[in-house]
């Protein structure tokens, strides 16, 4: 059907129905989960606030928003580093980044619900914890109350989300304008904006992970955390991009994307999965070595107290050992089957990694990996795929006027 150069992606009703089906599963499990999420034995009802449900919403919001956010980062990186080869798959990572506004809204809803005391994932959101008169008074939280004062927290949160989304919309808008206008004027403007985004993102990628994820374990802190969560989001974004490219290639689109492009994307997946492994292990090793109780509590809970040891090893194998062994050779980085197989492992593995960040701090030992978790993850996946495919169908799959387009089409390594 698509034997000639077909640069216009059609979002077929079959694909649309699959995404709607996934979204329906997600919606049903969310409603059912919200209604049936009662305090487990040993936890008082007043303290519980449907923690399992909200913790799942946080896991999925953060994971899927992170994919779009790091696709935006990758886009900016290509401009700043003046990368030519990736122009042929530019529309794909642009489409992945287009989920960012939706992900940002999801993240905002979860945080707002916490502020309105609908859930208790963040202990520091309870004003009683910094009131010296209260029995709930917590000296450590009180010590951090300047940073976690509601006005300051919300100023930061809104700043991150709004500025990220504005940058992302701007990149896409100018990229489409470039298709009509050509020349290098807009391209250099993109480079300038990308450099500005890089600086903003360098700070906010770390601080947002402290604010939204590390603060779940409010007594604990780690200097590696920002980079650890950043690299986790990055590898998730890279596998999403490569899986989408392979899907489109299989459907007969992106004919000008050749083996070398696929190989380069495969190298990115391999390299970033090593980056994550490095940071994940370094965070563990520093804490293990120093052996200070206020730091080791994070791994004490995750490995011994709450029964996550099996999951900890699963995350390690899925995100480090399998990608390392399977993607090491040149041939496997050019083999569609291997790339899809490893891509799916890493995607699930990093969802589990975010799960490991959130769950031991929130539902603690009452964790499940059941219908609610899987159903909501599938629902968010459907939503993300719907947004991505709609974005793909909106514009030509191959950029039309880009200074590096010719170089990218002739990419050969």
């Amino acid at each position, binding site marked *: 059907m698509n034997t000639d150069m077909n640069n216009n992606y059609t979002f077929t009703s079959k694909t649309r129905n699959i995404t709607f089906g996934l979204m329906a599963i997600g919606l049903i499990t969310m409603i059912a989960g919200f209604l049936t999420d009662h305090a487990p034995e040993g936890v008082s009802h007043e303290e519980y606030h449907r923690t399992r449900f909200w913790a799942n919403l946080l896991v999925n919001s953060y994971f899927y928003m992170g994919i779009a956010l790091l696709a935006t980062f990758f886009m900016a990186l290509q401009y700043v580093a003046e990368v030519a080869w990736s122009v042929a798959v530019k529309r794909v990572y642009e489409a992945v980044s287009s989920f960012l506004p939706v992900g940002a809204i999801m993240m905002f809803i979860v945080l707002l619900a916490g502020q309105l005391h609908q859930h208790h994932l963040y202990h520091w959101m309870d004003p009683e914890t910094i009131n010296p008169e209260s029995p709930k008074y917590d000296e450590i939280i009180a010590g951090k109350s300047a940073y976690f004062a509601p006005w300051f927290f919300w100023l930061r949160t809104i700043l991150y989300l709004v500025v990220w989304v504005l940058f992302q919309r701007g990149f896409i808008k100018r990229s489409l304008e470039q298709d009509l206008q050509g020349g290098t004027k807009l391209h250099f403007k993109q480079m300038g904006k990308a450099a500005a985004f890089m600086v903003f993102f360098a700070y906010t990628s770390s601080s947002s992970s402290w604010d939204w994820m590390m603060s779940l374990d409010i007594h604990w802190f780690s200097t590696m955390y920002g980079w650890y969560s950043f690299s986790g989001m990055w590898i998730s974004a890279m596998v999403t991009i490569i899986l989408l490219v392979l899907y489109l290639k299989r459907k007969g689109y992106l004919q000008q994307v050749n083996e070398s492009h696929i190989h380069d994307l495969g190298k990115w997946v391999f390299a970033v999965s090593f980056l994550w492994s490095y940071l994940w292990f370094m965070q563990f*090793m520093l804490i293990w*070595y*120093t*052996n200070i109780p206020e730091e080791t509590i994070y791994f004490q809970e995750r490995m011994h107290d709450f029964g996550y040891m099996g999951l900890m090893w699963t995350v390690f194998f899925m995100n480090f050992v399998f990608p390392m062994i399977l993607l090491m050779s040149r041939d496997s980085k050019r083999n569609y089957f291997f790339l899809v197989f490893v891509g799916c492992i890493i995607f699930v593995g990093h969802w589990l990694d975010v799960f490991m960040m959130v769950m031991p701090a929130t539902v603690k030992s009452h964790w499940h990996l059941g219908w609610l978790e899987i159903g909501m993850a599938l629902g968010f996946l459907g939503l993300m795929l719907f947004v991505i495919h709609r974005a793909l169908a909106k514009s030509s799959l191959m950029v039309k006027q880009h200074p590096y387009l010719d170089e990218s089409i002739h990419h050969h390594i």
Partner: protein
Amino acid sequence: MSKAVIHAIFDDEEPLMASAKSLRSQGIHIKDVFTPFPVHGLDTAIGVPRTRIAITAFIYGLTGASLATLMMWYMMISDWPTDVGGKPSFAYYMNMPAFIPITFEATVLCAAHGMVITYYLRCWMLPGVKAKNPDPRTTDDKFLMVIETKEENKSNIESMLKNGGATEIHHK
């Protein structure tokens, strides 16, 4: 049945590539090509087999990891068990996290140095070795193709090269 060596000079990489492809399709072996800059796809066009440096890198890396493990096990566990920061030192695996960075560094060190040294030895690029270049103009703007063939095929190949855009042909 004497052997003939042909040196064909090209002014551009396009006729060079096209000639290389047509010669190879006729089953003629191209011994080597000298170019002033790397030409993408030329190695496959002249039929150079794929490099095996990646395999050597893997072996060197494995050697590095094993040597580092052996060294640390001997020093820290076997010969003189050392208590660092109250960590158990009865068995290697108990102190595993502390040994990972050194294992990693030794792997990279051995793989990188091993690859470089192998490359220099294999290409015989050593201090004091005279450069093997049939024509110094290939370092400037000319492309040179070396073909080894039998005497009776010479004229046929020469005419193919001429038609393919070779500007000069020399016999060695």
